[in-house]
């Protein structure tokens, strides 16, 4: 029997109106990789924040190596040898790799930074990860995957015995993921305790020794023998029901063109793009990171300066110079970065839903509170947004529920064309399935949909037609029946 290095005993965490963790028990062993899965709002992020000392548990005990711990700050967690590597990396972009690695304990002589020692230390730890990163490079200049390695190296430099990963692969390519897994396995061999939080079940199967399934802040089950279970089993336990086909794809009748764009140019687009979307059609856009997918949507939406020969919505020529114009013509955009481009964190759920549509509800600039309340209530019910009240601050909601609030914001409008940028990013499988169902429902109502995603199965699963982008250019348009994974990738990957 292996010894539990980390142990949670009946940990609960309460927020006003929400019980994020409910008498949670968890044990992670030395030299093992422990997976954590669960839907949005199941309590994964809360768990990680307790580990890293950001949250203090409302009740319960937490042991490290047999000793009870009471973290009062992120600092105390670091000192106890815990490192949490978040989805959004915590690096200082304008400092060098070496400085980032040793931030907080820069080697110095009489208060002056000892550059040679700094570079030496940084170099040796990166070497131990078999990473060839220039220690003098600015972190800003590194691609995401490299930054992640810097974050891992930082954990090692701080002698972290326990390393937790939060959705580490969400913005990595396959090759980068493989590299990351090799490193994680090596860390395990060296006796580190790894906690691996992910929505991607295939990664869990590939990597983890033990898996704990969370639902509504409680442990549903801890599987110690994951070879005995399969993908569907996990999904069932996570969601509490089974999801046969998460995409729910059904063919639809298309109407007249919803959106016709000719010669779209703008920042990030290498050659003029032509796009047509019919009413009721779902067009998926696939491309690697940096292929110009987000840029294309932002140009369409008028969020950045762009030019076109013409844009027609429902056959009518329109001019879109800014988001206000776009929304006025029924073209809406759901951004990829919910936190920085989607939500107003200081606003309530109702405030966030009515943000845009209130201009239609109001008369002479006066807010119609009743209509706003009815509208918010309607969408909270319709999209089953989990919130204790309409007045709850949106920042207290889970990621999936925040995304639904943003969707509600746009469904309140008379939408003709919807641009979705990675709508299911950081969203668990249950909420994903709900979102797909919703997208199909919107399409069947005649809304033209453009969906950008870096998840190929998602693109193949839900799109009627697929546009493949590479280096700021639309390479090809493939119909659903002719699109295969190989074909799409062939056009997406740069020529060797």
């Amino acid at each position, binding site marked *: 029997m292996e010894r539990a290095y980390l142990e949670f005993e009946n940990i609960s965490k*309460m*927020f*006003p109106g929400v019980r994020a963790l409910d008498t949670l028990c968890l044990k992670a062993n030395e030299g093992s990789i422990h997976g954590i899965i669960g839907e949005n709002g199941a309590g994964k992020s809360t768990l990680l924040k307790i580990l890293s000392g*950001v*949250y203090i548990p409302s009740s319960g005990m937490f042991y490290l190596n047999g000793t009870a711990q009471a973290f009062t700050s992120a600092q105390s967690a670091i000192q106890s040898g815990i490192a949490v590597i978040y989805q959004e990396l915590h690096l200082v972009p304008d400092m060098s790799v070496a400085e980032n690695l040793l931030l907080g304990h820069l080697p110095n002589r009489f208060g002056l930074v000892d550059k040679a020692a700094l570079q030496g230390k940084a170099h040796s730890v990166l070497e131990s990860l078999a990473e060839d990163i220039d220690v003098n490079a600015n972190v800003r200049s590194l691609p995401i995957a490299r930054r992640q390695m810097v974050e891992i190296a930082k954990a090692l430099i701080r002698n972290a015995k326990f390393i937790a990963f939060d959705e580490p692969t969400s913005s990595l390519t396959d090759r980068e993921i493989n590299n990351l897994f090799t490193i994680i396995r090596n860390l395990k061999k060296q006796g580190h305790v790894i906690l691996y939080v992910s929505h991607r079940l295939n990664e869990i199967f590939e990597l983890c020794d033990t898996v704990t399934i969370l639902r509504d802040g409680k442990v549903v089950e801890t599987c110690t023998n994951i070879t005995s279970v399969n993908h569907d089993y996990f999904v069932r336990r996570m969601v509490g029901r089974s999801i046969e086909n998460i995409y729910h794809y059904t063919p639809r009748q298309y109407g007249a063109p919803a959106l016709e764009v000719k010669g779209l140019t703008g920042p990030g687009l290498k050659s003029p793009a032509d796009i047509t979307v019919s009413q009721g059609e779902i067009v998926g856009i696939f491309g690697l990171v940096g292929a110009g997918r987000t840029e294309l949507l932002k140009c369409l*939406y008028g*969020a950045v300066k762009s030019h076109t020969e013409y844009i027609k919505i429902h056959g009518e020529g329109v001019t879109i110079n*800014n*988001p*206000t114009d*776009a*929304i*006025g013509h029924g073209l809406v*955009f759901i*951004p990829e970065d919910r936190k*920085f*481009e*989607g*939500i*107003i*964190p*200081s*606003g309530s759920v109702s*405030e966030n839903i009515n*943000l*845009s549509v*209130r*201009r239609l509800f*109001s008369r002479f*600039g*006066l*807010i119609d509170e009743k209509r706003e309340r009815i509208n918010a209530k309607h969408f909270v019910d319709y999209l089953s947004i989990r919130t204790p009240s309409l007045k709850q*601050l949106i*920042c*207290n909601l889970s990621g999936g529920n925040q995304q639904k609030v943003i969707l509600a*914001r746009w469904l309140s409008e008379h939408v003709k064309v919807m641009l979705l940028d990675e709508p299911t990013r950081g969203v668990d499988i249950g909420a994903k399935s709900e979102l797909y169902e919703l997208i199909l429902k919107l399409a069947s109502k005649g809304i033209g949909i453009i969906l950008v995603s870096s998840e190929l199965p998602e693109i193949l699963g839900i799109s009627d037609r697929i546009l493949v982008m590479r280096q700021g250019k639309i390479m090809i348009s493939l119909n659903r029946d002719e699109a295969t994974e190989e074909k799409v990738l062939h056009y997406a990957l740069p020529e060797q």
Partner: protein
Amino acid sequence: MNNTHAVTVKNKIFVLWDKAGILVAFILLFILFSLFVPYFFTWINMIGLALSVATVGMIACTMLFCLASGDFDLSIESTVAFTGVFTAVIINATGSIFAGVVIGLTAAGCAGLFNGLIISKLKINALITTLATMQIMRGLGFIVSKGSAVGIKAPGFYALGTGSFLSIPFPVWITAVCFLIFGFLLNKTTYGRNTLAIGGNREAARLAGIPVDRIKIIIFTTQGLMAGLAGIVLASRMTSGQPNSSVGLSLDVISACVLGGVSLTGGVGTILGTIVGVLIMGTVQNAMNLLNIPTFYQYVVRGIILLLAVVFDQLKQRRYV
């Protein structure tokens, strides 16, 4: 079960503290002063107190919007002085009070508009922009007045600052009406909600179709106008335009707003909080005057109060994390 009950009671206390903590603090302070500071709770002193916060109060109305949208305005103190002087000069030159007030307000509005254009269209940091216009407006005030106070030769103009209605001076009425108007704007109009949204997350607000630049320009223009109004009322009270008046007023106004719970990072602010913030600053100063505490010590006390308020606010926020 018992535990859950305790939690809800605790929550209710927190919610009350969140919503009305500063108001409760003010009421306690007021009662304390009434009991222990001689002459504090007298009609004459109350009127004096109200009059003393009138200028800060008027400008706090628009500063609330400015801070709520995530910006600053340090230039208002110079706009107050400039408008007073400029109005005095125009009245003396034309003999028309009306012309003086209208032209004075227009000039102040233009100063605000200028701030707004630079900040929204050229994307220059508000702190730097208004620091620059603070100097420019102060300089213009000195230029217009040739460096000395300009006495106003139209006694009818004094009524604005010295007259009263129902034995309450006009400046106090004006301030009260401003609070009502801007409270209404903040809570009941799209303009107010959009202002808070911009302060909460500027990019999200822009992508949600809110005309961010236009709203910023409106915020700064009204800020200029209110500073102008305050300057004119002040000039009327002093029966002259004084180019070196109101130094440090901007920070007084910002302090009062912050004391009233307006977030310096934007997105959060209420009119009630702002009123209470203004009143606390005024009340403490008033009580210190009555107690004959020397001015030098008053600065120290006001600084400490502001610091305490911010620290409490920070502690309050930490609970949510």
